[in-house]
């Protein structure tokens, strides 16, 4: 069982590596965020797979990661909004200026 779970974990890590390629290539910041999102899901999956091997306390780590993954996602979206505090769902009237070129997106 340990060998099988480790094998699956290696496989999930490999798919995480593929996701990292998307983070590297972009081209848009949305692509990078998606890559990071898949990396987060894969990381949680690896921790789940390790739990029967390393002890079920690994699930506490997975739980923490899932919470902070959500926080990081909100952080991403905020960081790329025009004024650092916005929400992509807001209408463009008045509040949000067109996002500045360069810096945040660099594809």
């Amino acid at each position: 069982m340990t060998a099988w779970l480790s094998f699956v974990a290696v496989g999930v890590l490999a798919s995480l590596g593929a996701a990292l390629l998307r983070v590297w290539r972009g081209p848009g910041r949305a692509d990078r965020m998606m890559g990071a999102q898949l990396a987060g899901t894969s990381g949680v999956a690896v921790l789940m797979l390790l739990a029967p091997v390393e002890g079920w306390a690994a699930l506490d780590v997975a739980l923490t990661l899932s919470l902070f993954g959500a926080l990081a996602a909100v952080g991403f979206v905020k960081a790329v909004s025009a004024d650092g505090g916005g929400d992509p769902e807001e209408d463009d009237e008045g509040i949000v200026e067109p996002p500045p070129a360069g810096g945040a997106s660099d594809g």
Partner: protein
Amino acid sequence: MTLALDATLCGLIVAVALATVLGRGVFRAIVFFIVYGLLLSVAWVRLGAVDVALAEAAIGAGLTGVLFLAAVGKLARTGAEAEPAPGRPHLPAALACAGLTGALAWAWFALPEPERPGSDLAAALPRAGVENPVTAVLLNFRAWDTLLESIVLLAALVGLWLLARDEDWHDRLGLPQHVRPGGVMESFGRLLPPVGVLVGIYLVYIGADRPGGAFQGGTVLAAVGLVAALAGLIRTPRVTGHLWRAAMVVGPLVFLAAGVAGAALGAGFLTLPEPIAGGAIFAIEIALASSIAVTLAFLVIGPPERGHRR
């Protein structure tokens, strides 16, 4: 197969670190850094250090990542986000760094088999008042380190607040956050905090016997506050908010008071007498977790900034 797992994990960690350093664009570097923290916390589980894995997941990957992301947002606001021209190719620097890595690698193989304090530690553990050995070290054996560490957080926050502009001093902390009322972000901000609060309290509570504790739990609570603030559900306080300031110091203060009480009662500075050690540690952990939560959240939000009176 487990070796293949370790090798894949280590390979990914090194690759992600390289991508963080070598890739163009600050945003890309920070995305890679967050993935790096995530992989590192998996590595800590593999090294049998679940307490560290929790701290890395919460602090290393989570809060530090959000801190950097928020910085990108703030730099965009200053108009100074453009990346400076990358430096010249640094062949000598690269060689020096390879040398440093080589020296550390050599040192690993040159290390003697250590006489570890493991046995002394194991002998002392039954008198520590808690079963989780890491918590015993943090809150009892090396309590002085931990007390100073909670003060380091405070020092960083005072220093950070001083970076506000004088004219912004009386404003609310951080950038103003706004979302579409009833939008996805807002409903997310309503759904997550109740779960997060439970998880945070759970981590503090189990810290005595299992991996977890004040720092990990406090960080989760800080994250809850941050989500609520980013989703525009709560407004950040001002530096003059004295209730908040009291919350920042209550943890170190309780810790310090426990230490002084030990000295005054003749037991010695920071000595927790064995019969009450477990209870004292729990009390200190609760106070510390509250202060850590408030201080960490403020550290990520940043100094007061104009713009809240939009």
